[in-house]
């Protein structure tokens, strides 16, 4: 099996092949043996040529985090053919979509739909666990879509679209 893994913005090509209890691994042209034991969901004990790691995985919003020695890495397994398509669509868009980065309650909305807003203008306030966080417009434009006051949002929910 061959994977393209992206860690910290760097792509690596990994080939994995079962070898009895162990794995044969080739990473960017270098071959070595792996001993990997799943401990429970989200935890693998990994020994690479004597070096032992307890590696963990969790998910937050739409990010998959891999933890090595308690240091988090955002990982993505990608198909190289889709990369160029993605970057083209990013370049042509001019719409700013504000997403909630954590669950919370929309405490106040300071603008109305179709308002003209400036860069850095405060649009709304989100409260999570008694802490208030002001969400500012990343761009100048017209507010095309806006969440209503009092709504409970989850990470990744659209708060506003400024065009």
């Amino acid at each position, binding site marked *: *099996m061959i*994977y393209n893994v*992206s*860690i*910290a*913005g*760097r792509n*690596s090509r*990994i080939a*994995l092949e079962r070898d009895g209890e162990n*794995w044969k691994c080739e*990473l960017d042209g270098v071959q070595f043996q*792996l001993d*990997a034991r*799943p401990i429970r*969901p*989200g935890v*693998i004990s*990994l020994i690479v040529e004597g070096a032992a790691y307890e*590696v*963990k*995985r*969790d*998910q*937050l919003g739409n*990010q*998959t985090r891999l*933890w*090595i*020695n*308690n240091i988090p*890495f*955002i990982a*993505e*397994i*990608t*198909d190289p053919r*889709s990369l160029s398509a993605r970057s083209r*669509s*990013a370049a042509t*868009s001019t*719409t*700013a*979509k*504000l*997403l*909630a*980065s*954590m*669950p919370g*309650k929309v405490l106040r909305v300071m603008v109305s739909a179709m308002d003209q807003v400036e860069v850095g203008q405060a649009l709304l306030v989100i409260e*999570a*666990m*008694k802490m208030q*966080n002001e*969400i500012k*417009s*990343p761009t100048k434009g017209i507010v095309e879509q806006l969440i209503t006051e009092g709504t*409970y949002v989850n*990470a990744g929910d659209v708060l506003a679209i400024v065009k």
Partner: protein
Amino acid sequence: MFTKILIANRGEIAVRIIRACREMGIIPVAIYSDADRAALHVRMADEAYYIGPSPAPESYLNIDRILTVAKRCRAEALHPGYGFLSENSDFAEACAISGIKFIGPSPASMALMGWKTKARQQMEKSGVPCVPGNSQALQSPEQAKQIADHIGYPVMLKAAAGGGGKGMRLVSGPQQIQAALEAAQSEALRAFGNGDVYIEKAILNPHHIEVQILADEHGNTIHLGERECSIQRRHQKVLEESPSSFVDADLRQRMGEAAVRVATAANYTNAGTVEFLVDNAKNFYFLEMNTRLQVEHPVTELVTGLDLVRLQIKIAANEKLTVSQSVVQFRGHAIECRVYAEDPDNRYFPSPGKITLLEEPSGPGIRLDTGVYEGWTVPNDYDPLLAKLIGYGENREHAISRLLRALNETFVGGIHTNLSLFRRILNDPAFRAGKIDTGYLDRLLISGVSGENREHEQVAAIAAALFHVLDPTIKEGNKKKSPAGVLDSNWKRASRIVPDSHE
């Protein structure tokens, strides 16, 4: 002694009190809101009663509901924990009227200390040094400006009914005072139901050092030494230790005696904490008294060998203190890390959610006071404190190394936590040299992170592929999202421009 105690709190402190009850053969009773039906404190209690919807004003702050439950289950005493109703003298009064012993000081002592302006007036009378400022609620921005001009900028605006950093604003010049006053007043009103704000001279980068006291109902008051609480962010304590490396034996004795004087002046009983600001010349000023058990009480327990919750319950049961001042001995060093569900890469914004994976530390010199478990969804409605990780050693260095070892054993998956912050603090040369004051954490956070991440990138890449094969419980991230990289800031993501593929 009581046979049944109702615990009017939740989270780790409710669990802590349940443990003390069990050790004393007392039946612990839990209360819970909608969000907390499956909380750890409910699972651990002998009895548990529903008291209302998730928002605190409808449940953990609802005096009538809590007292109805306390009477119905025939609890003889009530432990308020910290936060919520713990410093509400009306609540303590209502307990007394219902014939339920409130485990804490009298309503009168609480009212005096809870009203920061009145407490200041009383301490000035008793000869305890206070920070220069006014001891009345501010009437207008003009009045605030006048007083600030008199005592000199920078000044601190503080909620008269307050504590815990709520309703507090630092003001460096007259042009900011109106906006700061309005913000402080509205925050105070929201947090405490009273918008009174007073003014104090801001002592820049002081040490925040507090003294634990214990007073029985027979006139005996002792102190249990100090806690260094200077590691704060937005006036919220993050890491506390005892003893303080800044306090020598002479200062310890003088502050301890002042703390006992404060408690005596307020006719104080049960456990309490006197907070002082200490400047670089080791002058100390009375800041406030917290009339309850503190979050950080475990560090005092570890260095004195005393169980503060047990002693609180004994004092409330009218027992005499069996420990006298001369018997109190300090041994070793203890440091507490407050583990919060918050995102270090997003200005420490709270990050509630489901804990999908949890590994807890153990071993020599490690104590974990927790209120969560794997599979529990940290609710959005309350404080983001998950647990307190406390390290104890024969000296400060030993305590630090044990904590670092324990942090390595700790993992919380599925939500953001501030665990990485403690690794940074405990490895920081300035912290290790004891060079800390209340400005320390801001300075550390500005200094940025080192690039230690790169060495494990290859292991992370291998692990990603292995999880894909061995443990397909999580699907890899949505391929339409931005390319992967080092953990990018959620704060940035919150307000970044996202290409909209539907347009």
